[in-house]
């Protein structure tokens, strides 16, 4: 396939983990929960996804378990920030330290000190009938792993949920003004917990995607900042589903581009290409500036007595 074709294919593939994690963060922030522990959640999701897939041979089971364990880990964050009113940023950071430590501990205990790399079989691509036969585009966009279709579907569902449904508006109210939402009979605490379940699950899926759909092995630090890039994607995508999709495709493109350039170039140290996604994130944030467009009560503790 052509250079451009490969690039687009890789762009879609590389955008997916960031997209899942960023959508998780969107659900979190819409309920007023700024969770910067995404990197950690993705790390534990990635490990569990890999491990379950390694044991059972099923990528689906791996992704499911990755999501479940990430939800469980995120419940610690939920309890501390919702019930104990801990600072979101500080606690998110605590999760960023806790979850990867847990992941690497489990990995080391399970695989011991064996030096040989354990590998799994990646999830296979499924072509969508008819659409996949469209020349050029068909092979690129409609012959992907099912996770790609799920992610796109998720974006559509998210957009409809937040803009067209009553439940979505209630959900958003919790992130904008929880006290007012509570007086309208919305269960603020429950909504926040739901947000943390969704955020944990999606971050876990994003992490598990890396081991079950992208690289067939687990290495420490394999999330490589995608949790934080996802945070940037939410800001860059202005808290809208479509915006986040575009932002993630942009970051996916940067990742895809750097891999292509690494392969092509001779003489330039490859690390300079690897810097591209991180530099792009900084530039993207610098261009968009710090206008506060997000949910107004994001990151603020909700205390019932403060009405």
């Amino acid at each position, binding site marked *: 396939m052509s250079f451009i074709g490969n690039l687009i294919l890789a762009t879609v593939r590389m955008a997916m983990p960031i997209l899942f994690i960023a959508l998780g963060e969107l659900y979190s922030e819409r309920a007023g929960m700024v969770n*910067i522990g995404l990197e950690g959640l993705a790390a534990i999701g990635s490990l569990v996804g890999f491990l379950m897939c390694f044991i059972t041979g099923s990528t689906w089971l791996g992704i499911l378990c990755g999501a479940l364990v990430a939800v469980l880990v995120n419940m*610690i964050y939920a*309890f*501390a920030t919702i019930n*104990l*009113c*801990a*600072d979101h*940023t*500080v*606690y998110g*950071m*605590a*999760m*960023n*330290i*806790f979850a990867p*430590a*847990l992941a*690497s*501990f489990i990995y*080391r*205990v399970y695989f011991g000190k064996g030096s040989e790399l354990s590998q799994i079989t990646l999830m296979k691509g499924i072509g969508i009938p008819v659409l996949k036969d469209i020349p050029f585009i068909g092979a690129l966009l409609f012959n992907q792993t099912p996770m790609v279709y799920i992610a796109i579907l998720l974006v559509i569902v998210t957009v409809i949920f937040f803009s067209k449904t009553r439940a979505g508006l209630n959900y958003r109210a919790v992130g904008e003004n929880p006290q007012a939402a509570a007086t309208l009979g919305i269960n603020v605490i429950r909504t926040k917990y739901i947000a943390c379940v969704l955020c944990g699950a999606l971050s876990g899926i994003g992490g598990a995607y890396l081991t079950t759909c992208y690289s067939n092995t687990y290495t420490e*630090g394999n999330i*490589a*900042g995608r949790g*934080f*890039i996802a*945070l*940037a994607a939410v*800001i860059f995508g202005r808290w809208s589903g479509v915006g986040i999709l575009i932002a993630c495709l942009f970051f996916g493109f940067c990742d895809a581009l750097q891999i292509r350039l690494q392969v092509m170039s001779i003489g330039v*140290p490859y*690390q*300079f290409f*690897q*810097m591209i996604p*991180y*530099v792009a*994130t*900084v530039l993207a*944030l*610098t261009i968009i*500036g*710090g*206008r506060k467009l997000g949910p107004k009560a994001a990151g603020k503790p909700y*205390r019932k*007595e403060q009405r």
Partner: protein
Amino acid sequence: MAKSGKSLIGFIVPLLSILLAIAIGAVIMACLGANPAVALKSLVTGAFGSKPNIGTTLTKATPLIFTSLCACFAYKCGVFNLGGEGQFIIGSIAACYVTLTTGITGVPAMLIALAAGAVCGGVWGFIPGILKITRGQNEMIISIMFNYIATLLMGVVYTNWLRDGSVPQTQSVPKESQLPRMITGMRMTWGFAIAIALGLIIYYFLYRTSGGFKLRAVGINATAARFNGFPVKRFILLSFVISGAIAGLGGSAELLGTQFRLINGFASGYGFDGVAMALIGQLQPIATILVAIFFAALRAGATTMQAATGVPTSVSDIIQALVIVFTVAGMALTRLSSFEAFLLRHSHKKEGGKSA
């Protein structure tokens, strides 16, 4: 609540968290088939059992003290510098260039390398700082991105620019430019002394000077500080630069004192570790140093423990992670109004009992 009560809680909560985390660690050890008592004993022996062991512990503590002071300083001004690792690495790269390429050796090389490390670390901290105050950016994301950029830049240095033959690492710092040991028979170098001195200076600055007072005021309430006429933005930028310089100095001290060469995995995780230790130490510089030494002891001891009982060293990472999870949650718990009311009721009862 009274001020003494609050600082008492700030002491009790981390202590309880550490004990709880160690208890869970012991359960994990038991689950792995080791005798927790034996494992914990070998952990303590490994960390403090002999003069060389204490030296190893303090050597491991040195970089952690620097990165935790880095996190502590920025957070005192209300900004979250998560870029300690990148600033640390940039400092070590600068030190590497000074000692390997300028031809200067001995004490002058050490001093220039340390200064260069601090300056370059400060520059690396300046970037997220200036983007924060001019573009209103999320300093956490930016500083983390610069961690990855610094790590990759270090990769270029040890695989290309200063590569030592066929091995992907830089040459070793010449013997005469390495930081000397403080005490014979113990591994820790004067880098440790610099770290402690720095902690004391930061403590003095933050709590005994008007500049430090203003910086903390900005950290507690930026709006109020602005109304008082404090140059809030300048303080935020300054705190980022100094915080970066602290980490950069640490990076050069680590290179000159302990590691001697840049190699894959250098400084990995030090930044976040520093943040954890600063938070557990309640952002008090002196307490932060003690916490850093404690975690260094845990790591130094974990090696002995692994040799003695087969429990993997990563147990120490789990314990550290649990301490931060418990401490932050515990501190939040004590700030809840229902908890304060409970304490108040309890203390009233006591007083009532006395007077009756």
